[in-house]
């Protein structure tokens, strides 16, 4: 008898012969091997019939690891591509959020994963730097995303906000594209690009227009009761109104400026937030929001998204706000026409990055808005339904606030 299997070094007919013609332990070993071989063969037939020959087949390859409250990375694998949902919520949020972000980049920009070469997407949840202290952070370590579960007093799990997952994955995209130096203005641009694409991932997933979007980063990961600096819900940052995301006795006051006149010159050290990369990013963040409104297209990913994506790929590593402003304006004009270029320039002028004799008022702009336009090489595809739990909409608000420090010690 021959079962067609050619993957084993001892052919089955020899094993069969051994089970009939030898005695004792050798006969038993041959019988066991034969049974195992048949079992494996049956499994392979079953997987083939189900299309599961290789669980990692296809361009998307996610793995979620559990650090189990330790600092070792990546930790223990707990969910791989195609596997059933875990009983652990952060594991599923990291898995689903990476999937939505992958789909966004794929379907809006035809980008294949973080490196545009199909790179696997690894995430670690339940990370802690100290065993007894919940980690209030998420970061990209150059190879993977890492999420803390928060202290549960101010911050909940950092996997809760889809825009934060999009933010972290975009740090990887930036690393493989313009590799903006993570200090001062280039670092603040790096941060801003992560917020820009992070919020776009969320808006795209929810099919929100720019008017429906909350323009908040990390709203869902703050525990209930954290006070906002405006009528909008509290969050880590507001792209629409930087400086208003929070104003709470436990958290301090949102220090982000919304204009170059309030740019904060901080030391390029860890204590100085590498020159205020998470602080001064408020300026380019608001420029993106304003560009969306001035361009007038219904969704952020219709026109502003392709302009900022092309900019992410074109900037040099030490780019300044001024470089980004000029690049976005030039690319806007190339992709969507002269008025789009004026709209983007107007956005940067309103935040004080571009100055000069030619001040363009939004009321002077014409021929903007309407249906999305397809940029060269950047096809537009409507967002699909992606299986992730819905994120509730939030009202918006406008206010301004001044920067201060956290009240508690290191």
């Amino acid at each position, binding site marked *: 008898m021959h079962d067609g299997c050619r993957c084993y070094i001892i052919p089955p007919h020899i094993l069969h012969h051994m089970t009939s013609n030898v005695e004792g332990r050798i006969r038993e070993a041959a019988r066991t091997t034969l049974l195992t071989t048949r079992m494996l063969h049956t499994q392979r037939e079953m997987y083939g019939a189900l299309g599961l020959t290789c669980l990692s087949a296809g361009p998307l390859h996610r793995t979620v690891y559990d650090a189990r409250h330790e600092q070792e990375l990546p930790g223990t694998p707990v969910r791989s591509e195609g596997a059933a949902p875990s009983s652990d919520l952060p594991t599923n949020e990291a898995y689903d959020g990476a999937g939505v972000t992958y789909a966004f980049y794929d379907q809006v920009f035809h980008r294949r994963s973080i490196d545009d070469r199909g790179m696997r997407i690894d995430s670690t949840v339940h990370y802690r730097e100290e065993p007894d202290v919940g980690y*209030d952070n998420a970061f990209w370590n150059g190879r993977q995303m890492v999420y803390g579960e928060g202290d549960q007093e101010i911050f909940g799990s950092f996997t809760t906000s889809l825009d934060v997952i999009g933010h972290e994955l975009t740090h990887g995209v*930036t690393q493989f594209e313009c590799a903006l130096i993570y200090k001062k203005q280039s670092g603040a641009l790096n941060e801003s690009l992560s917020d820009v694409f992070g919020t776009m991932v969320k808006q795209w997933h929810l099919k929100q227009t720019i008017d429906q979007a909350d323009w908040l980063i990390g709203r869902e990961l703050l525990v209930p009761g954290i006070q906002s600096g405006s009528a909008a819900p509290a969050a880590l940052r507001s792209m629409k109104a930087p400086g208003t995301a929070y104003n709470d006795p436990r958290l301090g006051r949102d220090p982000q400026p919304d204009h170059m006149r309030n740019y904060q010159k901080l030391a390029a050290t860890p*204590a100085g937030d590498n020159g205020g990369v998470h602080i001064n990013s408020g300026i380019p963040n608001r420029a993106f929001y304003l560009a969306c409104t001035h361009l007038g297209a219904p969704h952020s990913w219709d026109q502003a998204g392709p302009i900022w994506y092309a900019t992410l790929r074109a900037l040099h590593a030490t780019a300044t706000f001024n470089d980004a402003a000029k690049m976005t304006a030039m690319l806007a004009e190339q992709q969507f026409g002269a008025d789009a270029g004026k709209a983007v320039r107007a956005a940067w002028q309103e935040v004080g990055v571009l100055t000069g004799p030619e001040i363009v008022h939004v009321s002077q702009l014409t021929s903007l808005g309407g249906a999305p336009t397809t940029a060269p090489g950047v096809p537009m595809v409507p967002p699909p339904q992606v299986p992730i739990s819905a994120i509730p909409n939030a009202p918006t608000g406008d206010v301004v606030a001044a920067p201060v420090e956290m009240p508690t010690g290191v």
Partner: protein
Amino acid sequence: MKLMLERGGGIAGLRKPPIAVDTAMVSDGAALAALASRVLALPAPAGADAPDQVGYTLTITDDGGPHVIDFALGTAPADLRALVSALRKLAT
């Protein structure tokens, strides 16, 4: 010996006031100074330049002047982690 620990960064960009300690002014100051001396003898730790990583700056000032060490806690060696823990306890 004077020690100062500063912290910053993280996706929230939160900045907190530094912890400053003069080992001559605290109980067990000699043990703390010895721990800091061991930290000074260590190879330079990996920096904290990954995006959104929480970063620390430790400044140890002795007879030789200030020595500044930037690091991330997650990848810091045991003595450096122990020094951070001791300084935090003194601050609470």
